């Protein structure tokens, strides 16, 4: 214990012996740690936003469909329970954050243009609880009830159709008998979404109105359920599967959108690679600093060995020195990273490159997110690898022959 104390004292004093070299190394470690954490926060922000947008457009963390729906998302493949049975069952189970929806492909036509869209018959009150696309109304009003006769479309789509609030459009789809089902709607609101593609893809009408239009009274295409954490859906998934009792297919968002699902794992791997690559660049400086520190103190090391300090005590000194340097650098780097992210809490506008970013589902504003796990990972990796890198100079120092080291000029 006493050897640990004296080794720590010597390490802390020796650290500032060549303060210029120490400061240069501290700057390198701090900048490295800052880069690891800040860049990871930007990437996490981007990926999380992509995931949230993806989950909003699904929407929900868990969905229930007819088991044939995923292969054929048509009006013939509806959830086995009626909307009233669903309400009763979910209410009894205490599940509140869900929405039942009719989702069918449709053609929307203004007096000038026609486009293919996904028609969603929704319950506006329930829809708010699942944070789906379409909830941010830019102009006009949102849907007010399941009987609302109006329609809400995306701003981009309104532009493409050359239509506006107050104008009428026609929606056309198929009923269960494969007959054309169509209806005129008045545009009552325009929604905004993070992704322009979402503004063009979805149109929202009252659920009962759409059910009547398609001749499927009381039936829905999907149930979307949400929770608090998209990383943790197992419990919600299990509860829902138990409620549906095998009658319909219950899938998590990772299963529904495998691209989104793999993003999290890929991101975690990427963060680790990124941290290790930065550390490798740092390690050259660290090892060089320690080797120089040992080289400059050969006589002292010889003296300490001659006086009876064991080689392990010498190793401990060099390792402590490395540890102190790393911990100090990491502390500064962590503080810098947090300080850099705070001013960006309202988002970093990257609209200059947004068109390119949208190709892989990213929004034009990034919200950097520092995750404690990433900070811990960066610090643990740097400390662990740093200590491993310092073992070689520490081992060399402990192997000196006292008599040769003392007489070294």
């Amino acid at each position, binding site marked *: *214990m*006493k050897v640990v104390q004296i080794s720590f004292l010597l390490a802390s004093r*020796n650290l500032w012996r060549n303060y210029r070299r120490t400061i240069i190394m501290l700057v390198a470690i701090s900048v490295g740690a800052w880069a690891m954490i800040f860049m990871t926060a930007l990437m996490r922000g981007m990926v999380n936003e992509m995931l949230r947008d993806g989950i909003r457009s699904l929407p929900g963390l868990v969905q229930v469909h007819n088991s044939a729906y995923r292969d054929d998302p048509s009006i013939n493949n509806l959830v086995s329970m009626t909307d009233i049975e669903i309400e009763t069952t979910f209410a009894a189970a205490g599940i509140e954050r869900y929405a039942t929806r009719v989702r069918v492909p449709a053609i929307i036509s203004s007096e000038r243009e026609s486009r293919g869209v996904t028609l969603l018959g929704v319950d506006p009150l329930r829809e708010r609880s699942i944070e789906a696309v379409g909830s941010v109304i830019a102009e006009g009003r949102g849907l007010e009830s399941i009987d609302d006769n109006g329609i809400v479309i995306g701003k981009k789509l309104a532009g493409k159709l050359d239509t506006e609030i107050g104008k009428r459009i026609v929606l056309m789809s198929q009923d269960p008998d494969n007959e054309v089902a169509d209806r005129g709607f008045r545009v009552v609101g325009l929604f905004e979404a993070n992704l322009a593609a979402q503004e063009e893809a979805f149109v929202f009408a009252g659920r009962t109105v759409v059910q009547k239009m398609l001749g499927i009274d009381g039936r829905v295409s999907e149930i979307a359920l949400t929770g608090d954490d998209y990383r943790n859906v197992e419990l919600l998934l299990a509860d829902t599967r138990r409620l549906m009792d095998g009658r319909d297919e219950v899938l998590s968002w990772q299963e529904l959108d495998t691209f989104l699902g793999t993003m999290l794992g890929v991101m975690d791997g990427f963060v680790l690679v990124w941290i290790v690559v930065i550390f490798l660049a740092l390690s050259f400086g660290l090892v060089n600093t320690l080797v120089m520190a040992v080289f400059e103190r050969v006589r002292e090391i010889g*003296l300490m060995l001659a006086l009876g*300090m064991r080689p392990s005590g010498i190793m401990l000194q060099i390792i402590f020195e490395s540890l102190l340097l790393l911990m100090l650098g990491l502390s500064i780097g962590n503080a810098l990273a947090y300080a850099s992210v705070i001013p960006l809490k309202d988002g970093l506008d990257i609209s200059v490159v947004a068109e390119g970013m949208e190709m892989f589902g990213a929004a034009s504003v990034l919200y950097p997110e520092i995750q404690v796990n990433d900070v811990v990972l960066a610090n643990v990796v740097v400390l662990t690898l740093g200590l491993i890198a310092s073992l070689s100079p520490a081992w060399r120092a402990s192997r000196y022959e006292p*008599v040769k080291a003392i007489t070294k000029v």
Partner: protein
Amino acid sequence: MSAVRCVDLCKTYRQGDQDIKALDHVDLEISDGGFVCLSAPSGGGKTTLLNAIGGLDKPDTGEVWIAEQRIDQMSKGELAALRLSQIGFVFQAYNLIPVLSARENIEFVMQVQGQPTALRRDKAMAILREVGLAGLEDRRPAEMSGGQQQRVAVARAIVSRPALVLADEPTANLDSTTSDGLMALFVDLNQNHNTTFVIATHDQRVMGYAKRLIRMLDGKIVDDIDQQAA
């Protein structure tokens, strides 16, 4: 009981194309409480002999015994433990640890030995007074003169009352008054605590304090004088 026993010690160094015999079949026995000076011209082998006795250097052949323990076959760890518990060193150059104060340098060995903080602090302060450095305890080596540094090194060597003190030119950087004071301290420890001293020196005044004077030349003991008898 003998404090030091060397049997047929040989040590050869390679210098360029030449082999230099630093120790040439040296036999030596120093009893407990001995006060021995080794005298030799430069390159005569006295520092090599001191290093071999202190376990800092291994002889090519022969045996070294300290307090009835054979040390020339010990591992590095065993030698470190032996030096820590039984031997005090004063080296030719100042050899203090630059980042530690005078008091911390003196406490170093005791701290490695695991002595309690308060005890080693008291001992360090007391020895600083004995070597005339009271008030300088917080100074680092760079803030002290050569003589002051040498006294700190001596204080560190004797503070934990080792059974054997090996000193290589301990008075080389001291004025005559300080040198006499230091030697008086050595004599006191030798007489009152039975500490064995082996001192390598060129200094005639230091030799005058020794009970036994050993002269070396070219790695051989050429003269062994019992000064008490004389």
